[in-house]
């Protein structure tokens, strides 16, 4: 990347809200249904039908506004954005133009070790359009109207982002907050979060912004990163070779790894925004705004910093934990019990538990694991009742069914054996089976003891106390 230039990025993030019903009708709001089964005359814009605003949409958007430290416009309106396209059955999208619901906020984003404050220009509510389907088996284009009228919020950032890394971190934080608030499924792969990226470059130290290009269709975290890197380099090359950047809209093709011109500024559409006469000015009361603010949970960046400060977690671990609200909530509950060191619980959550969850593609709330059981298991390790090896077996059990860890230990006979008389048979057998290792040890290769202890642990099915076994192995060799 050319070091004489600085990249300037702003993001427009569209997030589908997970309200039960659509924004202007009572159709179910759900992803993945059979085509054209979740639509009605209203969301299909048939003549004579009228929209009625779903107040839940307003509440979700106001909560997001609070989470991004915005000013909430308690009196606002909805406007029509007029354009023709087959996926837009009314030929206008009901959106918000000059008075968005939320304005003038910011978001603190953790980028590496640094906290960056990114301005949020506005958040407004609008309806989604349908989906066009191009199918090779059919000569033409099909349209699925299920998505028509799905509620969206559009979150527009200030041009405060300065690298692809920052943009990616910002977008990740936005999706994490959406999940924290429970207002969106926030799945980029299902299109419930979509992103338009504005990129410009300027000579380092310049105070004026360069001419920007907008990239559409940037639909994964990785694509955001790649699109910005590509576009910034393209612009820098143009400038470095004496050219100028034209303001234009480009489509990002992630498969090909490049952006393609969609339309230039001259072809910009005139959307003829005007207030939607079917929808009156709507009011969110001061009390409601305050109540929604009070309902906000602790947000991920604050949580990460708290974990570092209160529990001494590494920042990267704290962030990994905070990014998943269910696991972070679990962690907080476990830490609050005060039965074990929080950091150990965090290690289990980020290690073995995360591994099992990822393998099975489930969430912690889908398992039988409780904060109490995890804490109790750690206590059993600390007391020497079970080894770390045996604990993995206990963990699998307590994730599968609601059972006390101690009971698992008993049922499976996993208790650690520290009684030398019970282990001597195992030690004798292992030494007899491994004469070479024994000989090596005698020649002074004392590291071999570890191998022999491991063999004893294996033979004891993880139950032997490793410290006891170590003492016994060394003693026995010396006796030979």
């Amino acid at each position, binding site marked *: 990347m050319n070091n004489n230039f600085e990249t300037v990025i702003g993001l427009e993030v569209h997030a589908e809200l997970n309200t039960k019903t659509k924004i202007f009708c009572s159709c179910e709001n759900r992803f993945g249904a059979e085509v054209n089964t979740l639509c009605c005359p209203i969301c299909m814009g048939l003549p004579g*039908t009228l929209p009625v605003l779903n107040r839940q949409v307003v509440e979700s958007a106001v909560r997001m506004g609070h989470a991004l430290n915005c000013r909430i416009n308690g009196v606002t309106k909805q406007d029509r954005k007029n354009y023709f396209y087959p996926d837009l059955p009314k030929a206008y999208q009901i959106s918000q133009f000059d008075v968005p619901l939320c304005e003038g906020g910011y978001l603190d984003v953790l980028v590496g070790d640094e906290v960056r404050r990114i301005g949020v220009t506005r958040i407004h509510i609008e309806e989604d359009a349908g989906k066009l389907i191009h199918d090779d088996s059919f000569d033409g284009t099909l349209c699925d109207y299920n998505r028509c009228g799905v509620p969206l919020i559009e979150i527009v950032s200030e041009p405060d982002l300065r690298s692809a890394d920052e943009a990616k971190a910002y977008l990740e934080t936005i999706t994490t907050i959406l999940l924290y608030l429970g207002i969106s499924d926030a799945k980029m792969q299902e299109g419930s979060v979509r992103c338009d990226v504005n990129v410009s470059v300027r000579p380092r130290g310049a105070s004026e912004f360069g001419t920007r290009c907008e990239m559409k269709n940037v639909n994964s975290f990785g694509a955001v990163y790649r699109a910005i890197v590509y576009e910034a380099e393209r612009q820098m090359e143009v400038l470095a070779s004496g050219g100028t950047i034209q303001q234009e809209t480009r489509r990002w093709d992630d498969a090909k790894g490049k952006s393609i011109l969609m339309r230039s500024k001259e072809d910009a559409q005139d959307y003829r925004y005007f207030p939607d006469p079917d929808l009156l000015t709507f009011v969110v009361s001061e009390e409601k705004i305050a109540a929604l603010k009070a309902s906000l949970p602790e947000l991920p960046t604050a949580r990460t910093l708290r974990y570092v400060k209160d529990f001494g977690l590494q920042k990267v671990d704290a962030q990994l934990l905070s990014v998943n609200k269910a696991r972070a909530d679990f962690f907080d509950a476990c830490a609050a019990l005060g039965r074990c060191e929080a950091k150990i619980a965090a290690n289990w959550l980020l290690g073995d538990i995360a591994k099992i969850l990822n393998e099975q593609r489930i969430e912690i709330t889908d398992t039988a694991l409780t904060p109490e059981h995890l804490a109790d298991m750690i206590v059993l390790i600390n007391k020497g009742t079970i080894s770390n090896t045996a604990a993995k077996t206990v963990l699998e059990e307590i994730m599968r069914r609601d059972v006390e860890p101690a009971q698992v230990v008993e049922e499976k006979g996993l208790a650690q054996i520290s009684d030398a008389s019970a282990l001597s048979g195992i030690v004798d057998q292992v030494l007899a089976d491994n004469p070479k290792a024994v000989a090596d040890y005698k020649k002074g290769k004392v590291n071999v003891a570890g191998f022999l202890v491991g063999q004893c642990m294996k033979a004891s099915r993880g139950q032997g106390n490793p410290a006891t076994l170590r003492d016994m192995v060394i003693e026995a060799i010396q006796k030979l």
Partner: protein
Amino acid sequence: MRKLYEYSATELSSLLRGREVSAAEITEAALGRIEAVEGQVDAFLTVTADEARAAAERVDAKIAAGEELAPLAGIPVAVKDNICTRGVRTTCASRMLENFVPPYDATVTEKLEAQGAVLTGKTNMDEFAMGGSCENSYFKKTKNPWDTSRVPGGSSGGSAAAVASCEVPLALGSDTGGSVRCPASFCGIVGLKPTYGAVSRYGLVAFASSLDQIGPFGRTVDDVALLYGAICGHDPRDATSKNAALGEVRGEVKGLRLGVPKEYFGEGISPEVKAAVYAAVERLKGLGAEVVEISLPSTDYALAAYYIISSAEASSNLARYDGVKYGFSGNREGTLNDLYLSTRSQGFGAEVKRRIMLGTYVLSSGYYDAYYKRAKLLQGVIGQEFADAFEKCDAIVTPVNPTTAFKLGEKCDDPVQMYATDVCTVTVNIAGLPGVSLPCGSDAAGLPIGMQVIGPRFSETRLLSIAKCYETAVGGFAVKEM
């Protein structure tokens, strides 16, 4: 002896309750009358004889079972063809929707059905309610029952002509700039444009959403009150609807102050119309009303504001007719743009296209502030002038149309002259007020003249009471023999 089709809805309702007549007989009388005069009037685009007979049968079954009847049970009602009727095509008198059959009812038609009213058919209109003569229909030209060489007024001309010719006692129209009041006046019947929000717009195919209201037609004030009472009230499906209700229509004017605004009696109003309305005001004065002269100074600008706002909204409301999902579809072989162009060029008539272009222009970047924004400001001013006027009076009396019904084809070549016929009615829509149009005499040729009574928001009961008082004093309104 009076024929059954000549009876008012109020009378029919009472006869039905007294078991002096059956719903089937009433319906047959209406269908027979339609058969007899429709060739002269051309009021209907669709006659729903089978559905009407079935509805009447249901009412008769209820009567036989001794069940309670709703006020409109068994009464034939015609509905303007821009009001959606489930399973019955709703064309808006446009080629664009020639074969459009809505899978849903408008809230008003749902209410009518719930009452047991008998839908006899869908009436002709100016295409998408744009026009003042009913001549902008893609399908046919409705004639004025008083003189079939003349227009019935518009845009709800079919509904007005159907009531005036006794094809039905009641009909629904819609009024965006005068489309109920104007044809009521031309056809010599009573028409009410309710307060904006009083009647649900759900299922009314939108022309200008902030101005459109559905309103009733009848040959008597009581009939109009009967139908209005059945359709008004809040609807959760229309965010702009309000909880309106009708009180008792007593027919009194004693002690009411009637404002007469000089701006409504200016140059463009024909002497005969002026004289008839002034005479009606005198008559009301004689019945106990107090008459005060008032001024509504911005009236001159109302027409411009109206055509800007209504066309702007229309350009957006009518954008959905793109030939993709329903309605007329043009060239489907070429590009998407070809489909849009051919569909909209061929599917819409000239007047609709004119308004779409006008509306698109006034909303476009660089012109919005000069036109749309200023028109909206003017709307506020006009509303305020009415509010001020209602400090001095309880209702305002004006003409409805500058002239009586004109000849078919007379104004077709001059849109601006046609627009000017709305001069007395558009202010009411701009200010969201109720207005009733009722007959107040006739011109030298015997054509009806109408007067308009305008009141503050939700004063329908008062307006109908004034109208009824006048109606009683003149011994009822004349019906044209056909």
